[in-house]
């Protein structure tokens, strides 16, 4: 019985197919909202599904220079990482499928795996656009990763546990957003960086380096990377909403809170121009890290006073 339950969890709900479908739906919401803000019509609801379906049927061109095995393997690892992390977060307001002490760190690093794979995929070719894109992807990873991680650990410190399950139980009904406003803002903007959305889309700035690290990818590899990105969008939104917006108990709450968060992301994206990579790094290390460290100082002092 347990085996069947595990299989369903892995492949259908809440992991696997359900997360993929949810990811593509959220991608559509993002694109549609963005289009409406920009006074465009935007795609129809099935567009992300159609994109992926089309890409999956296309021939995958493997460049001669670079490791072919790595070229094929990296997208799979990237998507697997994103899907695995979905098992530890309360997708759709459901309880996390699996849980153990410290799964917060594991989930966050599984999400970073996607970015790492993207960077490696870019470095695995001799295409100059890919190489510049890979350098930028990895540079950006090092700039937002630490502040984002610290911002996500803020609620964990208050809950005295590093288990997502228990943090959510602790944060349920407590709008951490008002208790740790800086942490929330850093987490939200860090999410933009993680998803390489404007203004942090220098790694895939089309007017400079075409498609960045993924320039050489076509067909299945590209589809898998994009699916990974879609899944990451959902998981990122889920985590920030669960930690900072009073938990995501039940499907209606989940949908409502994550969509509000997504609306915020779309608002930021549509209002800004792209930052240069040096400006991105400067922003994160000069402001992001300092702000989140200040937040931590307050937290630690407060915890000390309480104890």
């Amino acid at each position, binding site marked *: 019985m347990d085996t069947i339950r595990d299989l369903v969890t892995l492949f259908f709900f809440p992991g696997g197919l359900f997360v993929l479908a949810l990811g593509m739906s959220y991608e559509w919401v993002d694109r549609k909202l963005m289009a409406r*803000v*920009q*006074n*465009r019509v935007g795609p129809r609801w099935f567009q992300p599904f159609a994109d992926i379906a089309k890409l999956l049927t296309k021939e995958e061109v493997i460049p001669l220079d670079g490791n072919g095995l790595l070229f094929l393997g990296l997208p799979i690892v990237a998507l697997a990482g994103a899907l695995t992390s979905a098992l530890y977060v309360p997708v759709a307001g459901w309880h996390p499928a699996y849980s153990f002490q410290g799964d917060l760190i594991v989930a966050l690093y599984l999400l970073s795996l996607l970015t790492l794979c993207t960077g490696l995929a870019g470095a695995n070719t001799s295409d*100059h*656009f890919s*190489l*510049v894109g890979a*350098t930028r992807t990895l540079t950006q990873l090092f700039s937002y990763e630490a502040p984002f991680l610290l911002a996500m650990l803020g609620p964990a410190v208050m809950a005295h546990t590093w288990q997502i399950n228990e943090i959510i139980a602790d944060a349920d009904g407590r709008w951490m957003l008002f208790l740790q406003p800086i942490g929330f803002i850093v987490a939200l903007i860090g999410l933009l960086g993680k998803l390489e959305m*404007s*203004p942090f*889309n*220098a790694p895939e*700035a*089309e*007017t*400079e*380096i*075409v498609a960045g690290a993924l320039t050489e990818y076509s067909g299945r590899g590209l589809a898998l990377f994009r699916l990974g990105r879609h899944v990451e969008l959902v998981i990122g939104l889920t985590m920030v909403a669960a930690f900072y917006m009073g938990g995501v108990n039940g499907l209606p709450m989940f949908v409502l809170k994550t969509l509000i968060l997504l609306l915020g992301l779309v608002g930021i994206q*549509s*209002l*800004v*121009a*792209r*930052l*240069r*990579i*040096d*400006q991105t790094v400067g922003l994160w290390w000069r402001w992001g890290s300092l702000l989140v460290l200040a937040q931590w100082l307050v937290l630690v002092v407060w915890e000390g006073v309480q104890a």
Partner: protein
Amino acid sequence: MNTVPERFVVPIGPQHPALKEPGHFEFTVDGEQVTAASVRLGYAHRGIEKATEGRNWVQNLYLLERICGICSHIHATAYCLGVEKLAGVTAPPRAQAIRVVVAELERIHSHLLWLGVAAHEAGFDTLFMYSWRDRETVMDILEALTGNRVNYSANLLGGVKFDMTPELQDMILKGLEFLEQRTHDYVAVVTTDATLLQRTRGVGVTSREQVEELGLIGPTARASGALRDLRVESPYAAYADFPIVPVTATEGDLEARFVVRLKELFESYRLIRLILEKLPEGELQARMPRKIKPAETISRVEAPRGELFYFIKSNGTDQPERIKVRTPTLCNLASVCILAVGSQLADVPMILAGVDPCFSCNDRAVSIHSTKLGEKQWTWAQLRQYGIDYYRR
């Protein structure tokens, strides 16, 4: 063991998302820093100059309009003014005024288009979408005036093709009112938006000396404090009767180029309103001779991108002996290679867009790049012979 680091070249073009037309740029980069730049043009060479020699004066008007898809009217105006000078004919004042109205409408359309492209290069797609939406207003006006959205064909030798009816005037004024209000918003965005300013302020600074050295023209030069505007320096068509106030800035960076182009829009709105108010009465076309006696002339006009230069030579028949066109992009493009060196790779598309390049206008010269033949300049006869030999084989 190679100790000399390999040159890492980022090619932009001939096909690249940053370019709307084919051109080829090679930027050698060290990390994100550009250390060398080179440009190669000619991908959109269409042989228009040569083709004019086989057509009569009237046919050439429509051919030359097709040099550029954005500033088609200004090409026709330069050609008409030149041919009229050769034939000793002056177009009636009403026709000249209408030419200026269309030219300024075209400038509005071109500058709004540029605003969108430049914003897109900076990754600011919202501004891109909005400016192109508003550009539709002026496109609609041009369509209502001339019947076409791209190649307006407003000019005739010796005059213009259509009259300005009161209904059309109403439509233009209504459109301008909307655009003027929107332009105020755009000026506010490009001068105050923090993220856009990070990409434009102090980027690609062109000094006043560089303007002289590189021979820059148009809004690119005006943004560096050089007053280069033929509408002021040597007024043509109706600009002598309806003078413009030139817009300049002193900073010379990309922000200044945004500001100069946007403020020129206000000047265009003002001028169009003034002309419509005081539109001279009279004929629309003067009579032109079919053949023109041997002579040569130079015709210069201010296109949206800068000075447009026409050399026209007649030989007594109804066809020109030679027409030479120099478009503003050619003068400004050199600055891209100079300014790109030492800047960030991410700024390069912005610097490139900053001069508002228009390649297909530009590609007319022939230079041969071939490893087999060596690099050299050929005469027309040599090139023709090479072509014949090539296909005979």
